[in-house]
């Protein structure tokens, strides 16, 4: 509890400093909304010509785009500091974090706040909401609870992958998070139904870097569409697994860290 309270206070400090730059926020928010609008125009134009993509309708693919945007948004808004990890390692600046009585990984992730995450959370939620409104899901209390659990798991997976791929910088010692960024982009593949990809890509997105558990599998289970829909039930397990691996990679990496000597 204390950890969570301190985390919000750490973020709050950055939030206050961001409020100083109002136009910055407007530009970033405008740009991210524009990106989602372009995605929606693309999907609408595509599905105007084809009713279904491997059994998936416009609204269900829109939900997958929304799920990826939402997970990305939470990662940016609450855990953006991870993306500065490479820079801190390269400069040997992690020393300050190591001497404070608070988990190092949390100090790293709270070291920045990406206000663009806010607009992605909003647009992503709207896309998921619109998709659900056009689906024939039979809502029972148990299903609502499960949907919430799947959503939380999906976000945990995205944040864990972010942490693990950024922690690779402990080994790469590059000053920019290029590797993590490239993997983040691979995650964009999960915005489409996994079934359209060749087997090798399915293995990558389903097992090696389980981006498909952010969007495709949970939505396939909820909407009861596509083959192997029961796999969506594994989403919470995938989340626990990802979080564990991310923590392990970070701990291992931290042991390799060499200070610049402050």
């Amino acid at each position, binding site marked *: 509890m204390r950890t969570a309270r301190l985390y919000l206070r750490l973020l709050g400090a950055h939030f206050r400093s961001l409020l100083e730059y109002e136009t910055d926020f407007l530009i970033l928010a405008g740009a991210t909304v524009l990106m989602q609008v372009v995605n929606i*125009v693309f999907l609408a134009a595509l599905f105007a010509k084809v009713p279904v993509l491997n059994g998936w309708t416009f609204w269900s693919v829109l939900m997958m785009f929304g799920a990826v945007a939402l997970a990305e948004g939470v990662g940016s808004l609450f855990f953006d500091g991870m993306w500065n990890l490479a820079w801190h390692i390269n400069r040997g600046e992690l020393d300050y974090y190591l001497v404070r009585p608070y988990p190092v990984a949390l100090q790293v992730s709270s070291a920045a706040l990406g206000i663009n995450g806010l607009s992605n959370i909003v647009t992503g939620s709207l896309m998921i909401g619109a998709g659900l409104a056009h689906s024939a899901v039979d809502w029972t209390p148990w299903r609502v609870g499960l949907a919430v659990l799947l959503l939380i798991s999906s976000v945990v997976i995205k944040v864990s992958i972010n942490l693990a791929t950024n922690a690779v910088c402990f080994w790469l010692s590059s000053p920019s998070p290029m590797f993590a960024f490239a993997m983040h*982009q691979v995650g964009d593949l999960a915005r489409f139904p996994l079934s359209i990809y060749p087997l090798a*890509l399915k293995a990558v997105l389903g097992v090696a870097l389980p981006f498909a558990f952010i969007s495709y599998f949970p939505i396939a289970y909820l909407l009861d569409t596509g083959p192997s829909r029961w796999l969506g039930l594994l989403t919470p397990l995938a989340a626990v697994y990802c979080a564990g691996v991310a923590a392990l990679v970070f701990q291992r990496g931290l042991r390799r860290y060499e200070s610049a000597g402050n």
Partner: protein
Amino acid sequence: MRSYRALARAAARAALAYRLSLLLGMGAVLVQLVALLAVWRVVLAQSPINGFTWPQMRAYLLVAFAAGIVVSILGDFRMAYRILDGDVALDLVKPVDYQKARFAESLGGLWIELALIGVVVGVTLAFTGGVDLPAGAGAALFVASMLLLVPLKFLIVYVSTLACFWTQNFMGVQWARLAVVNLLSGALIPLVYLPHWLATAAQWSPFAGLTSTPALIFLGRVDAGEGLLLVAVQLGWVLVLWFGARLVWRAALRRLTVNGG
């Protein structure tokens, strides 16, 4: 001229020094190619849509990929940081024209980009089958269009990067540009799939020259006359933007504040 050649060579060497960054930087365009190839393969498996067959769409996407990779090395981020840091002051005292110097730098990396395009296109064709090459007038127009794409893309990136003189937030400007270019150039989806009014607007915008024009000529979807018109539009935008960029640059310099130095 010699100084510009030196800048071009330096840009290529810098790109080669950071090989991993170079490859990872291609990520977004490559991911989009993979995703769109997979989507269209499924969609077009049954019957052609809007006159696009699967082999044609595959060729379209490969041209879009090539157009997306050209002039992408090192470009905007470096220029943006130099403006935001004030290092641009050092560029100003050099006896070269700023705009031409940046253009020379983007030309420097061109051969590396062409090599990368060759590899990806080769691998894709090996996995998915060949494409029909344009012949005669079509081939000549395609080459002309791809050549014009280089200055056109440079100028669009250059002008949008000059926005750094007005805002600290280059990231937002870059994201907005990428989104607009992706849609209006036809890189995300061929323009004929868009609503008619949007397709027409995009067709005459400078962005169509970044993907749609060379791709349509490559596929032979426009005849020689139409193709010539599209290439002329490309050329027109290159000229407008080249001189327009000079006006923006003049206005931008008046905004420049450099601390110390």
